[in-house]
């Protein structure tokens, strides 16, 4: 489909300049090395197949988070979502989690979604922390607004980061927004933000070579826990 660039120019949001998120590597409890790095518009088609299976998983609101993330990724790819960034986690190339977020203004960030495909290894918590790190440390923002679909994740973040209730609504239109300020971030950083930079070249090379996506069945089993039939 050809795009009428003249019309398109009215619709495409202008993108604010955004410094890049420097990749890091986190050692998981298994000893596995998770490369955490920023991905871009052109990577979206590689991420979508990992999100799609979650649309049918009601547990912990994976379906709602997955459907929204899917839509946000598409909108971003096709220039209908402004000032978005996306960070992924990969272990040996395999995609284990995706987070996205955006700048509402130069000062305020909006945390969008956190999708952990590998569970039980704190992948979600590490990636959520990485996105806070990007907002505060690299984009230099003063505050990030946060809400969550799942009560479990939300309560944890609220207490672990000491978030404060904010007036008004979060742009996702869900539960009340909570704010993470620069000060709160730096208070919590030593407990919640892991990882080393730079990523050793061999690990980075594996991560960048290919974003490996587990099979649909594997993704469902990772999220729901495999039903083990034992005779």
């Amino acid at each position, binding site marked *: 489909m050809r795009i009428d660039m003249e019309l398109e120019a009215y619709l495409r949001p202008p993108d604010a300049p955004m410094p890049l998120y420097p990749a890091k590597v*986190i*050692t*998981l*409890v298994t000893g596995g090395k998770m490369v955490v790095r920023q991905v871009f518009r052109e990577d979206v088609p590689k991420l979508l197949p990992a999100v799609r299976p979650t649309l049918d998983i009601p547990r912990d609101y994976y379906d709602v988070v997955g459907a929204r993330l899917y839509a946000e990724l598409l909108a971003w790819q096709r220039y209908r979502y402004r000032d978005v960034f996306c960070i992924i986690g990969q272990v040996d190339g395999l995609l284990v989690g995706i987070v996205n977020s955006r700048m509402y203004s130069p000062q305020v960030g909006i945390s969008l979604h956190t999708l952990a495909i590998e569970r*039980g290894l704190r992948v979600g918590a590490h990636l959520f922390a990485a996105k806070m790190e990007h907002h505060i440390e690299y984009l230099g923002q003063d505050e990030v607004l946060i809400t969550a679909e799942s009560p479990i994740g939300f309560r944890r973040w609220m207490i672990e980061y000491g978030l404060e209730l904010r007036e008004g609504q979060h742009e996702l239109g869900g539960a009340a927004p909570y704010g993470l300020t620069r000060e709160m971030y730096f208070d919590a950083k030593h407990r*919640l933000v892991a990882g080393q930079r730079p990523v050793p070249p061999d690990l980075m090379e594996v991560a960048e070579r290919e974003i490996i996506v587990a099979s649909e069945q594997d993704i469902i089993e990772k999220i729901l826990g495999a039903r083990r039939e*034992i005779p």
Partner: protein
Amino acid sequence: MKPVVMAGAGMIPFERRDDDTLIDMLAEAGLRAMDDAGLGDQPVDAVYVGNMASGLFNHQVSVASALVDKLSLYPAAAERIENGPASGGSAIKHGYQAIASGMADVVLVVGGEKMREVIGPRATDVVACMAQPEAEYIYGVSLPALAGMFARLYMKAYGITPEHLAQVAIKNHANGLLNPYAHIRARVTLEGILTHPDSKVGNPIVADPLRLYDCCPVSDGAAAVLLTTPEIAKKLSAKPAITVAGIGQATDTHALHERADPTDLKAVTIAAQKAFEMAGCKPADVDVAELHDAFTILEIAESEHAGFFKKGEGAKALAAGETQIGGKLPINPSGGLKARGHPVGATGVAQAVELVWQLRGEAGERQVKNAQTGFSLNFGGFGNNVVALVLRREK
């Protein structure tokens, strides 16, 4: 007293089981034990259900009657036995007594708990309800917190290091990977949970000095054993009879601070002694042990209090690999509470199920070679009501 054997054993995988009710879980485990024993259509005289808190977790009580109904075992007698996290061990004891006394010939003992019906902090609260209400609970104490206060003292007194605690977790998670019934299925490494700087985040403090990988998870699950007399067991199936050789139980003060020496788990020592005395054997005769590692420190402390090692030697034996599968005394080949999970009321029965499999030689990849005598310890409250069990394969 008449001799009692475990003729059947079975359990369902421990995990988060959103789709099953507590009664479904109990029924499934119960059927597995009945089928394992080859019970067929023979009647069950009594059913004991080990369960801590169905009222709080699931808003359902009288679960033993509900189980009898689900399995259509009427008119069997039925009771729920509650002894906190040692409810399973206590339920086995009651089943034993029913047969040993001659009041019953066939008893089904099922332990189960469905804890994940409530969110994590609520589960922590339900579990904390076992603490002393006015002197402990009101302060916001959790079980990990009681264990943390205990660990701080015990580690100092006996030179136990964070490395030792991590070794318990590493061993039990490795064992758990060999157990298809285990809840947590991850191989953790010393680097990942202790030595790498990222471990501070990946393995966060739960109740200092205890971290996530020092604590058991919160699980759903059920396990069951079928108890009967040796004569009946022989008629039912050709499987080796596993004798309930000894049971011991002991209590201690409710509040941790009222123990003259808070590092002394007196109830563990006494329960183990009683079980060994009844079985007519000693700790050195045990080939495989399932201990209550709700917290890593407990595996070490219990291994000493139960008499397997002198105080201060448990951690050394662990570090030397003596407690691994293939070591001198394998402890928690099932993965223990750390990896198999800890649906509180189910645990004591799951320990017995593991021992039955081990003693029969049916434990697959995690089989302890030629195990003949097994020991389990189910730790209720924070050590204020402990049940110990000795099982034996007859020659």
